[in-house]
């Protein structure tokens, strides 16, 4: 030990400690210099617009006439709490997010597990086919389903007509069923995303676990609930965060399908903010709605993200 220490003490490092410090400082400076461009971009495209939105949500103003706006402090936020339409759109957004994301996750897991049991070539082909909706822009998906749901020339009503159910289904034209129709279109478009993520997660589960479970006499459901789902927990948490935040901010698919109607039955928070900002020229209020949306997203999905982060830190080697 002392010999080792003696060797170290005799090395150049110990002879010239100031050189070490200056090299370390240089490395640190280089690191800072390398981070600056990324940090600048981050500040410019994320922090500045967010700060601007936060600031402007305290004003009552119109687009293009920002300088003529009046400072109203928190009035736009208080207005949100007292606005029945805003609260109703919040309720609808929560309902849409919960129902659509739940269905997508259940269907995505089911499809991925079923495909995993098929021969590889067939599974690959079907996976490709199922993932096609992912390649279509949401606004096009909205337009496509709008025509599918049309009672006069739509496919949905054609098939319902064959079974004699056409008159029982309100479709997009009735407030009671419009949100359900929007959810179906959204589920059709985004379930493939869950399918892809879960498929990737399944590839990471060791096959011998299933082998052992089979030998122990576990059935398909037992293997799903005791092996697959617990080991997919992290993947599902990521999927939940990505899809949940996406669904909560839903805009384009609803805009193309119903525009928020009929009778405001599909009015999401994002559509409401858009209408207030660009149709009614109340940009300050629209900004406040956007900030509230973001705050709610942080409140709902923040703990999940935190748990994910702690878990990944805990598992770090």
């Amino acid at each position, binding site marked *: 030990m002392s010999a080792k220490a003696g060797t170290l003490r005799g090395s150049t490092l110990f002879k010239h400690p100031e050189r070490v410090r200056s090299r370390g400082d240089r490395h640190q400076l280089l690191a800072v210099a390398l981070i600056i461009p990324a940090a600048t971009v981050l500040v410019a495209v994320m922090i500045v617009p967010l700060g601007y939105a936060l600031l402007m949500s305290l004003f009552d103003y*119109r*687009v*293009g*006439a920002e300088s003529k706006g009046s400072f109203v402090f928190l009035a736009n936020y208080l207005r949100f709490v007292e606005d029945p*339409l805003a609260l109703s759109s919040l309720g609808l957004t929560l309902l849409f997010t919960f129902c659509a994301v739940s269905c997508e996750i259940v269907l995505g897991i089911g499809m991925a597990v079923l495909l995993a049991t098929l021969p590889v070539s067939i599974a690959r082909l079907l996976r490709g086919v199922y993932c096609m909706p992912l390649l279509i822009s949401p606004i096009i998906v909205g337009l496509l389903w*709008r025509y599918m*749901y*049309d*009672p*006069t*020339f739509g496919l949905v009503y054609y098939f319902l007509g064959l079974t004699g159910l056409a008159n029982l289904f309100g*479709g*997009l*034209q*009735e*407030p009671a069923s*419009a949100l359900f129709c929007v959810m179906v279109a959204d589920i059709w478009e985004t379930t493939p995303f869950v399918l892809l993520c879960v498929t990737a997660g399944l590839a990471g589960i060791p096959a011998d676990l299933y082998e052992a479970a089979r030998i122990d006499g576990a059935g398909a459901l037992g293997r799903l609930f005791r092996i697959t789902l617990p080991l997919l927990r992290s993947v599902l948490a990521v999927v939940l965060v990505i899809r949940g935040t996406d669904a909560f901010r839903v805009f384009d698919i609803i*805009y193309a399908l*119903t*525009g*928020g*109607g*009929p*009778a*405001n*039955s599909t009015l999401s928070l994002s559509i409401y903010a858009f*209408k207030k900002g*660009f*149709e*009614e*020229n109340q940009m300050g209020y629209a900004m406040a709605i956007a900030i509230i949306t973001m705050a709610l997203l942080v409140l709902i999905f923040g703990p999940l993200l935190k748990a994910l982060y702690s878990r990944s830190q805990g598992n770090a080697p």
Partner: protein
Amino acid sequence: MRLTRPLLSVLVAMGAVWLGDGRQCQAESSGQVELVISRWAGPHADDQAELLKEFEKSTGIKVRMDAIDYGQLRQKQILNMGGKTRAYDLVWAQEVWLPEYVAAGYLRPLDEYVKDEALGGKDFDFGDFQPSLIKIATVEGKLYGLPTFVQTPLMVYNQEMLGKAGVPAPKTWEETLSAAKKLHDKGTGIALPAKQGLAAVDIWIALDRSNKGDYFDPAGKLKLVTPENIETAKFWKDLSNVSMRGSTNWHFDDVNKAIEFGQADLGITISGLVGALEDPKESKVAGKLGYAALPYKNRPFGTLSVWNWCVTADGKHPREAYQLAAWLTSKATERKLSQKNGQISARQSVLKDPELIAKSPWLPAVSEALTNAGTQPRTKNAPKLMDAMESALSRIAAGNADPQKELETVQAQLAADFP
């Protein structure tokens, strides 16, 4: 060597930025004026783009059309003119947008340019514009747009099918309701653009004005809960009850499609779209249709919407932009566009053209609707009123809500905005 790569990257990035504005740069650097115009996309824009080649050829001025979806047009124009990006020289603006644009200082008054006859060209006769439309384009005594492309909702019916069904061509509220009920009993009904949106409000206010109702009382105060307005809202509900399935999520273009394919025998659409109904290549019912002004209670009434070519305040070439606006609204260009797509011109001479009337059977109905036409309110808070009415009419049509209660709700909701 170490510096070569970053330098190259910077140069490539600069090149990309420069190329992004490439066409403009090319035109400007060669001393050629390039105008950028903003309007909505569609067949009408395609026809106009075709005609613009003639302007480019005769003047040497290049024109680039930024045609986008109607839903995003106002938003994009505001973002550009508000941000003073100098992106547009000429914008196509609806009459309801003009007061807001003028108040925000986005537009340049045209009065001085109009006086310069050489700039307008020999085919530009200012006195030929419909005076009422010039009045609409005038804000605080100054002219801010040259009007063109007038639109008004119209009633369309398939004469052959109505004849077979024993339904006479309707004109009044009662006749329309009776015809729609008969068709509804047979499995269809009236094709109504009752989607939550401005189309429904445009129709409702025309129906209401034909019933001597309006949003405001003679003193200019918002007064929605009147016997006339309630009666009109009830009629809207009755008409919705005998409308075709799907109507509560239909806009004008959906109604047009239902008529075009022969699925609807009676419907309400807008004059700007009826040209397609008479095109034998597109429509199954071309030549079989009849047209009327919107159903009326006391006298026909229309809701008028007119598009205006406006020179932007921050545009790079205002004189040339006006020159283009004058050419686009000249008698010859208007006649050509009317012949091509049935556009309703803002020029008196074009509307009276016998050749055009023979080709466009809906023109008499348009004239009837325009005799007593009005625009939607154009005050600062009008968008709030429109939005509240859109919701209320959708609740009445789709949600089976009580018409009187809905009007009371809107009145209460807007009390602070319309004191």
